[in-house]
């Protein structure tokens, strides 16, 4: 476990040193949806920079375009116009196949409803993204076990999603998001389906990922308390971002 941590930290600092520019650069991005005859402009020339190692919370009323923005940054949606760079690479220009490869290497996903594969147990769910690498079976196993231990589920490896609580499922999902050592982690309302206690545990875990492993995290949330676990909060309203608000470090 400590070994895995050491590796990840080294990797992140190296990447940070190499790039003076922000890790994520969203520049004048426009995104609209066609609904019947009507064209709904969700993001109207949105600009945002995210530095490596940041933990950013995105808040805003329902329908303001938070998920849309997150999906664009995560490379599962394409902008109408504008620039979307991650580590200097314009991901808006990638073909669908290249974008899929890019996601596999660079993005860790945490969903509101966990989105685990119901037929795979916890360990296999975490191992799943490594099926896209050339790692040997034993290596995959070892890494998945490490990641599960990291989220505190060493004793639940062979449990299936329906045998785990919501909070535990979300930890499995976090382990899965970590496993391929991604450049950034995106989380769309990761505590939206959890009770306060489980939500608190998940948020602390994410905070630890950010502070101890140096992971860059972008989290969408409706919950002010959840947002306060991040380093900074931004509000999105009608497709426009408010200014950035730093969270005061709390005494634990």
């Amino acid at each position, binding site marked *: 476990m400590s070994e895995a941590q050491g590796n990840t930290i080294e990797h992140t600092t190296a990447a940070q040193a190499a790039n003076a520019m922000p890790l994520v650069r969203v520049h004048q991005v426009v995104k609209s949806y066609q609904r019947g005859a009507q064209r709904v402009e969700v993001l109207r020339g949105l600009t945002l920079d995210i530095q490596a190692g940041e933990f950013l919370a995105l808040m805003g009323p329902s329908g303001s375009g938070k998920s849309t923005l997150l999906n664009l940054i995560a490379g599962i*949606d394409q902008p109408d116009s504008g620039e979307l760079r991650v580590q200097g690479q314009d991901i808006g220009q990638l073909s669908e*196949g290249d974008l899929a490869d890019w996601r596999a290497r660079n993005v860790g996903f945490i969903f509101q409803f966990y989105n685990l594969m119901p037929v795979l147990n916890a360990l296999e769910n975490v191992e799943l993204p490594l*099926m896209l690498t050339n790692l040997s*079976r034993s290596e995959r196993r070892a890494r998945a076990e490490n990641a599960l231990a990291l989220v505190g589920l060493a004793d639940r490896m062979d449990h299936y999603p329906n045998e785990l609580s919501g909070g535990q499922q979300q930890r499995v999902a976090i382990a899965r998001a970590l496993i391929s050592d991604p450049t950034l982690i995106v989380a769309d309302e990761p505590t939206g389906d959890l009770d306060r206690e489980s939500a608190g545990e998940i948020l602390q875990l994410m905070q630890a990922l950010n502070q101890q492993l140096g992971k860059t995290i972008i989290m969408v949330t409706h919950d002010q308390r959840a947002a306060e676990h991040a380093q900074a909060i931004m509000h999105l309203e009608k497709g426009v971002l408010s200014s950035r608000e730093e969270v005061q470090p709390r005494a634990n």
Partner: protein
Amino acid sequence: MFFLSLIIRNALRHRLRTALTVLGMVVAVLAFGLLATVVDAWYAGADAASDKRLVTRNATSLVFPLPLTYYPRIRAIDGVQAVSWANWFGGVYKEPKNFFPQFAIEARGYLALYPEFLLSDAEREGFLRDRRGAIVGRKTAELYGLRVGDNITLRGTIYPGNWDFVIRGIYHGARKNTDETQFFFHWDYLNETIKIRIPGRENRIGVYIAEVSDASEIARIARDIDAQFKNASAETLSETEKAFQLGFVAMTEAIVVAIRLVSYLVIFIIMAVMANTMAMTARERTSEYATLRALGFGPAFLHGLIYGESLAIALCGGLLGVVLTFPVAAWVGHILGKFLPVFTVSIETVQMQFIAALLVGFLAAIWPARTAARVNIVNGLRAVA
């Protein structure tokens, strides 16, 4: 391994649904195999035919006879190695429903022409020595409990009166497709009895069977025979034994076509059922497939999962169907033995069954796989599982 286990676990998610689909597949493949076997059985006579045997009959119709005097003239044709003859008897054993083919044969020559009818030497000698002797195929013997030494009486329909015989032998087929239902007795016995009962109707032959020395010459020899009797009182029509047998089948070709159509229809129906199952399954897993794609898995992976699952279910049902075809065909063959003397499942049928199963599995996956690989990831993730 991981991939394979994922496919199998997916297939087993809705046990009842998968079990019902597999069951449907079993029934369809079984029905397909049985119907193909029925069609094969229909053509079995033609398939078992030797390519060195010619059948010569009256050119006008099979119901008209040929004179006995044709024998030496056919025998003399260049390339003919042996000649024998047979008359269709068409008698009734106890009741009309007890049907089996009966022929009056020129015994010694006929048995030499048909080495596929296996008899022990003792039985053969016993038959040849007894003017009223008869030999019967294994299946008919078993069906009516006939044993060597038994007396049997047939009521004539073409040749009036009662005809008494003694069973002198029970023949077995040398090959699987040899007809084991026939009944043979001495043409001499028929002819001499007729001479007394209906004078003037003796010395008439149903068909001549000629064996040629070289199969590649058979068409030429057939033409020579027919040329020999051109403008004679009874003109002849000579054809290969296969063509002769097919002539009987042709009368019922429409039935065969209908059976074939039904067998394809069965496969088509299971294909629709299977495609519906796969589409339903894929729709339920929309958000899972979208998640996989978000994680970076490409369309090929999803195709593999969906085609794999569909093929696994189809082949599982197909395999069970094939395995069941053999005992069920044996049972059906037992019931239909009277009408379809040769009822065996051929290698070709098994191959067709597997191909049908593969095809069903493949075609059923096309639409769901396309949809899963194309659906917009963001929309897919929103789909409620």
